């Protein structure tokens, strides 16, 4: 009976497992082969030479640093702002529906439209620079003090904050109201209620949001690429630029070795997040 049940599970899982195998696992395994050969012509096995070359590449190092900085700023900021907004939404009595609609708008706006909007604002001839020039700032100053990383963070927040709000909001709705009532009866203020109830019961959701934010961090490339092209200024040159440009230069070896290195780092990072989540959840239970 157990074997029969297990067989049925596997039968239902089979289509998606096959899809995973064909579209993800096999190409991913095959890309390891490309990372271990010298080029697509002679295909000589070179061991870890491409990995060593990629790690020693100054541009790769700079791209990795920029990606880390971007992640370090945008992930906590995106989570914090989303949590704040979802708490505000939860407490709002009037106008919750229109506010929710406005906050969820970025989820349904196509990337092209969004990039056009950002281009109008942040392009070298955009509205922001126009405004600064009208304020009397010199055009040379405007050009020299363009905060590209800031623009990127704003785009990331705009694009992903709605998603985080949805997750946080659903997490907040699962917390029983009676807990807050009990805390209020015991004389706890809003801040104490947040730390002792909301934060604790929201921790599984927080980890999910963190996980998704890290993953989404790598998905903002499309907008950045459309906004600044394949060769942006050095301070926002990310790992995705590096890999995308290696593809366009037909350098499969550098591309695959960089992708594997990124996979390893990201894998370790996600494992740490999972482990931390387990530790925190166990501690609260």
């Amino acid at each position, binding site marked *: 009976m157990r074997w029969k049940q297990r067989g049925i599970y596997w039968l239902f899982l089979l289509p998606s497992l096959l899809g995973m195998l064909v579209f993800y696992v096999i190409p991913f*395994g095959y890309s390891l*082969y490309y990372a271990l050969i010298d080029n697509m012509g*002679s295909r000589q096995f070179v061991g870890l030479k491409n990995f060593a070359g990629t790690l020693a590449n*100054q541009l790769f190092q700079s791209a990795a640093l920029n990606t880390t900085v971007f992640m370090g700023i945008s992930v906590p900021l995106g989570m914090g702002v989303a949590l704040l907004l979802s708490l505000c939404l939860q407490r709002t009595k009037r106008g919750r529906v229109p506010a929710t609609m406005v906050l969820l708008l970025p989820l349904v706006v196509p990337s092209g439209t969004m990039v056009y909007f950002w281009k109008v604002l942040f392009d070298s001839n955009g509205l922001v620079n126009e405004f600064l020039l009208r304020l009397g700032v010199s055009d040379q100053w405007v050009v020299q003090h363009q905060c590209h990383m800031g623009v990127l963070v704003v785009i990331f927040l705009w694009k992903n904050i709605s998603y985080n709000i949805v997750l946080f909001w659903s997490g907040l709705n699962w917390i029983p109201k009676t807990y807050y009532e009990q805390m209020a009866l015991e004389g706890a203020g809003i801040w104490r209620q947040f730390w002792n109830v909301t934060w604790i019961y929201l921790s599984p959701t927080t980890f999910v949001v963190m996980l998704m934010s890290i993953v989404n961090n790598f998905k903002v490339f499309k907008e950045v690429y459309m906004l600044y092209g394949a060769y942006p200024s050095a301070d926002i*040159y990310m790992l995705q630029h590096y890999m995308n440009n290696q593809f366009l230069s*037909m350098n499969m070896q550098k591309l695959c070795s960089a992708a594997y290195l990124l996979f390893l780092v990201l894998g370790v990072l996600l494992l740490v997040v999972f482990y931390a989540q387990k530790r925190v959840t166990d501690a609260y239970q």
Partner: protein
Amino acid sequence: MRRERLVLSAASVFLVVALTFSGCRSSQDTIYSQALPEDSPSSTAEDSPASQDKELSGELTILSVYEFSNLERIAEEFETLHPNVKLNVEVGITSSADLGMAEPWEQFMEQLTTELMSGEGPDILVDPGVFTPKQYQQSGVAYDLREWMDADPDFHLEEYYENILQAYEVDGDQYTLPANFWVSVLYLNKELCDAAGVSCSAWDTVDYTEILDIWRAAENQGLLAQDFTLEFMDQKGPSSLFFDAEFPCFVDVKAGTCSFDSPEFIQYLKDTKSIPSNRTLSQGVVTMSGSAIMGDFSRSNQEENHSLLLYDMLSLDSLVSLSEIPENCVGPLILSSREGEVSFSTSLSFVVPTSCSHPELAWEFLKFCVAPVETPAFYSFYHPEGSVDIVQGGFPVAKENLLSYGELYGKAYQVMGGSMTIPDDFDPASMDSPFPDGFFTQLESVVSHYRFAIDSLGRVGEIYTPILQQYYDTDTLSAEECARQLQEKVGIWLQE
């Protein structure tokens, strides 16, 4: 349960290892042996005994990145010589409206890159410079044609402009074979040259600093008209005119370094922006050629000096006009960088991807497009049986063809006048040469001694053009900031 896991793990490892190492055998040697058979066919298909002995057969797909209508005619000529050969000519960017348009261009490039890397590319790629020789070398997606050249007893490198071929060389490898080339030439206003004390002879190289000196001296002496502009008819604008020539001075592709942040480049930017011109970078380039335009240039400067130079592309089409240079013009002069490197362009350069199904046939076709010919043709106007037009007005890469095609082009222009039709009884063999004795010997010698630098460096133009536009056109960048941005972005491109 543990057993199942063990079996699954072993199967996964086996699968990954099998997939990883299944293609590890080197295929290059096998492919070279296909491309270079022991009885390698000869260079010119129509007159070579070897190719007559061994009839070629097979089907090739030739992909041209841009539309190049004459490629189909060349393919047809080759098919006529070899009835068992079928050549399918495909074009990547078919609509001229799509040129420079981001989306169709990027879609095409992504598709081409994917096909080349996956070994499903065309048999021959006509690459106007979208990939650099170094990229071909690093990726290994194209054959090293130098190995084919060296192994083919019927291909003699010394018969070709080796300085042109060397421009494409990377570590002794040759991935691109150009069939023709164009060089930028200038004609200067003689009165202004004399006033500046500059004397130039025909075919001398001249760089932007010398042109600037002439302009400054003329301005100081009050010799310039009120509406003076650098170029006659403002064909290119100072940025476009000089940047291609100076580019090799500031970029060392082989070393992967650039020096746009140097004081010399900043000075270059300031100097070239100060020259009076009515054409911006975004307006593109106006191409004009021939003796008529030279006459106009000469006449425009007779009363007052309205312009300093006339820009032209040296091609077979314009050789006749060299004998009619007006007295108040100096030239032709070759535009070079300050270090004496001369840039050139080509409309027909071939790459053979490793995905080529018939490397031997591809090499024969390449030789057909570059090798010395017995009977040249003049576009579609004059095309007797057995003749071929492989130069399309450009300079042929085979030295011998310079004489044969040059003579024909000169005679054709002589009979055509301005009508663009050739009389039915046109017989070049019975006509006298329109060129003075020793003209082609001198020209060949001159061209052979230039140090050529490739001007097509992949997609780097997409990086520097918007920055230069901001400096020259919209005036939103200072020279220092422009130089800094170029250094940063081109530096990234070089280091990748």
